[in-house]
């Protein structure tokens, strides 16, 4: 059973089409790069998966259930674009932020137990941020903040992780180690990963599949096939195809 199955999905804002006739599926343990230029509709596609943006046509199924009726949100971990997330005045501690990742598993009135806090400790230790638990998120560096938000994603033990431009706030070293960590989670734990990025040349180093979007689906399939495709060479030109296929150190 696919984790996500999208059929003929279209989205429009103010009568202008943002996404047209998108169909693809995410299988367990997939690592897919959602790539496309700015304004291609990548973030809109992710938001539509979570029901944050309504579909004009088509359907989305999550773990075999229509997305509108889906309630088991703990199975999906979401890391939004960091720049839109962190309010520098917000006094939340690292522990409080990570706990938010378990809200979907709680019923009203949602309260956390000692066992929940132990899970927070475990995931924080695993990501080597255990010592920061009582610190305020706003006091941390960009790389540390990103790890905290990743811990928030992982604490509910999801089967799918969706990252929206996760590297925008990171320096090159932090970016490399962040993606190595994600790759490990994908390989060792079998967690499916969807990585949204405009950085077409970088994502191929980690992802197995490519979804290239420009308001409509340009390509969906394995990187290896994309690199050999004459059709894609004609579409992108040889130079850009080579940049996207930049998989030398895989």
């Amino acid at each position, binding site marked *: 059973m696919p984790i996500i199955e999208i059929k003929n999905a279209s989205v429009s804002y103010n009568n202008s089409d943002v996404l047209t006739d998108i169909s693809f599926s995410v299988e367990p343990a997939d690592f897919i790069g959602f790539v496309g230029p700015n304004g291609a509709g990548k973030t809109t596609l992710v*938001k539509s998966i*979570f*029901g*944050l943006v309504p579909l004009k046509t088509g359907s989305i199924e999550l773990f075999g259930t229509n997305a509108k009726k889906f*309630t088991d*949100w*703990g199975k*999906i971990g*979401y890391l*939004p674009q960091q720049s*839109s*997330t962190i*309010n520098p*005045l*917000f*006094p*939340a*501690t690292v522990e*409080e*932020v990570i*706990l*938010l*990742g378990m*809200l*979907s598993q*709680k019923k*009203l*009135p*949602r*309260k*956390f137990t000692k066992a929940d806090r132990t899970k927070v400790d475990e995931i924080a230790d695993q990501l080597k941020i255990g010592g920061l638990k*009582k610190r*305020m998120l706003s006091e941390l560096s960009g790389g540390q903040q990103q790890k905290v938000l990743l811990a928030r994603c992982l604490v509910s033990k999801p089967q799918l992780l969706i990252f929206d431009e996760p590297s925008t706030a990171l320096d090159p070293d932090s970016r490399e180690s962040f993606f190595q960590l994600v790759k490990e989670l994908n390989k060792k734990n079998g967690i499916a990963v969807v990585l949204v990025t405009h950085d077409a040349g970088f994502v191929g180093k980690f992802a197995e599949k490519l979804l290239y979007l420009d308001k409509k689906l340009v390509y969906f399939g394995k990187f290896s096939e994309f690199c050999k495709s004459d059709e894609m060479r004609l579409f992108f030109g040889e130079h850009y195809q080579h940049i996207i296929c930049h998989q030398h150190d895989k």
Partner: protein
Amino acid sequence: MDINFLQYAFIQKAFLAGSFIAVTCAALGMFLVLRKMSLISDGLSHVSFGAIALGLFLGVYPYYAAVPLVMAASYLILKITEKAKVYGDAAIGIVSAVGIAGGVILASLSKGFNVDLFSYLFGNILSISTTEVVLSVLLSFVVLAVLWFYYWDLFSATFDQNYARTTGVKTNMINIILTLLTSLVVVLSVKVVGVLLVSALMILPAAGALQLAKGFRSAILVGCCFSLVSVLTGITFSFFLDLPTGATIVMINAIIFAIALIYKKIA
């Protein structure tokens, strides 16, 4: 200072109602400040002016008119923002202006209750009635219970609304709950500091606590302490120095905020 003043029934009532209102205002104010919705309390207090005027005009107990009308106004602000392509601050401005205008028209039509209405403009907790004390304590309990019940939903929706929705938090419902609670607290606070200063009671303790807090829960607790201290000392100083109570409470709040700000700079 003569501590016998605590024997006066009106001081006891002011302390009791003031304490509950102080804590409620500060707890709710933290969510409003962090969501950049502070001015909704200002707008709704203006609406309460119109609603109280209507109550006096119709001969209805002002609280009974103000609670439903201010709650309706808060819902209207949300709906205008959602449906009419108007930003939140503009929606607050519209509803608030209508509230004040309605109040002024009713005051001029009646001619008889102007003095009463002005006591609501600046508040007078020392004249609080037993019914008002009971109402304040009960409504404060309701507001605090709802805040406790939805604490993590409110926290998550305040921290990152989009993320909260991806974890199943009903953010639209949370927004409605928050504005309805704000309406209740605004009406309660009118007696303490008056229509013109209500927003200070909600904004200043939270703003001060944010200078010192080391976590969200502690920020709320520190804000509640600041608010409680300012209301209790404000009532005391105003009694002994013969100053207007509402304004004294707000000035003490402002002094606490300034001290917190300076402490943060030098610490």
